[in-house]
């Protein structure tokens, strides 16, 4: 099986890799680039723990091939903080206790940071819809909604 040479921009840095066709994007990120903030929580594209922002859209990186990301711009949780300044969603999750075990958190942060790019003032219902592809087993979602509202406020 042929390997593919790919280059991506991940969190602003250009990276290259030689990948098997079947390598999943999430494994490129976690195991090749060794950025372990992006997690794997299921096999069936339901949980969203692996969410990254791919060319501006939050996607489940367990359901994209690494080779498909060739030439793409990827942002993971490690890329949210800029110049030592937390992204407002990161702040919001801490301020409003939007996380407990932390396992779903990177995916939630990627989904909600992308939401706020598109919608500066989402309603509770819109936030709930936006995160409905990300499962959380700890928080019961109420504080995640508050965290996003906090971030939205902060970004206005």
């Amino acid at each position, binding site marked *: *099986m*042929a390997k*593919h040479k790919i280059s991506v921009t991940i969190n602003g840095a250009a990276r290259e890799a030689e990948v*098997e*066709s*079947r390598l*999943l994007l999430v494994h490129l990120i976690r195991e090749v680039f060794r950025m372990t903030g992006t997690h794997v929580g299921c*096999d*069936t*594209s*339901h949980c*969203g723990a692996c*969410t990254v922002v791919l060319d501006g*859209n*939050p*996607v*489940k990186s*367990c*359901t*994209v*091939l690494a*080779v*498909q990301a*060739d030439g793409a711009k990827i942002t993971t949780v490690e890329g949210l903080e800029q110049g030592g300044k937390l992204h407002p969603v990161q702040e919001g999750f801490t301020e409003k206790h939007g996380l407990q075990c932390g396992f779903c958190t990177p995916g939630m942060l990627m*989904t909600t940071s992308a939401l706020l790019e598109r919608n500066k003032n989402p309603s509770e219902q819109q936030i709930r*819809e*936006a995160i*409905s*592809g*990300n499962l959380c087993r700890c928080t019961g979602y109420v504080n995640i909604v508050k965290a996003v509202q906090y971030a939205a406020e902060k970004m206005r």
Partner: protein
Amino acid sequence: MIPAAFDYHRADTLDDALKLLKKYGDEAKVLSGGMSLLPMLKLRLASFAHLVDINRVPGLDYIKEEKGTLRIGAMTRQAALERSDLIRTQYPILADAVPLIADPLVRNRGTIGGNVANGDPGNDQPAIMLALGATFVARGSKERSIPASQFYKGLYSTALAPGEILTEIRIPAPPPKSGGAYAKLKRKTGDFAVAAAAVQLTLGKNGAIERAGIGLTNAGLTPVEAVDAAKYLVGKMPDEKTIAEAAKMAAAKSSPSADRRGSVEYKKEMARVLTARALRKAVQRAGGN
């Protein structure tokens, strides 16, 4: 969950893709959004030696109305349909359905072409295409059109021949006094339908139903077109009694199987309830009562 090994090929043009498909025949599979295919490969429920990725093929991603036809490129992502003003204002049956497909992250990748072409009776858009009387455009050695009503052959089996790619979906633009609706019941966000009904109809001058199409999701091995029920409606005033009778007829066409979403009996009853609801809403949107 790791897919078995395969070779990945990126097509940069449609001709590229067709050449690759021709070359690898049965061993090749088209990769569009990948939201159904990649999980199947990961679970090793399916395997292909070659994947032909059409994500970068230009000219397959559009939503436009031309000469009385809505044309949607097969690579159009669900998220694009969700944000389309044209769909929201003119095709409420699609606008109803799209936000209920999987979840927002999946809709960022998943395409309408994949949804209608992979032959999963649990997908939502095939039933809608049946109700709308849509036509699918396929490209192989030549281009051909396949009516949705003749497209679905069996579980994961369609009229697409090996070497063919679905390129476009054509939907007749509804005439005035038309209405459509999609009514779906699901256990939770991200799940397939327990049952769902797609209805598209047009009312005549006197308020009677002039044309009707009804499709059912997850009601058998293929998407189900409730032809008898649709025929029954034509020429009748859309009153409660007519709606109830048509819903009953549609439900009679469903042959669901029992699973975690419900028993056969329950699912058939849901097909009836949801058909009635979709009918009422479609009538209302058509400007009837």
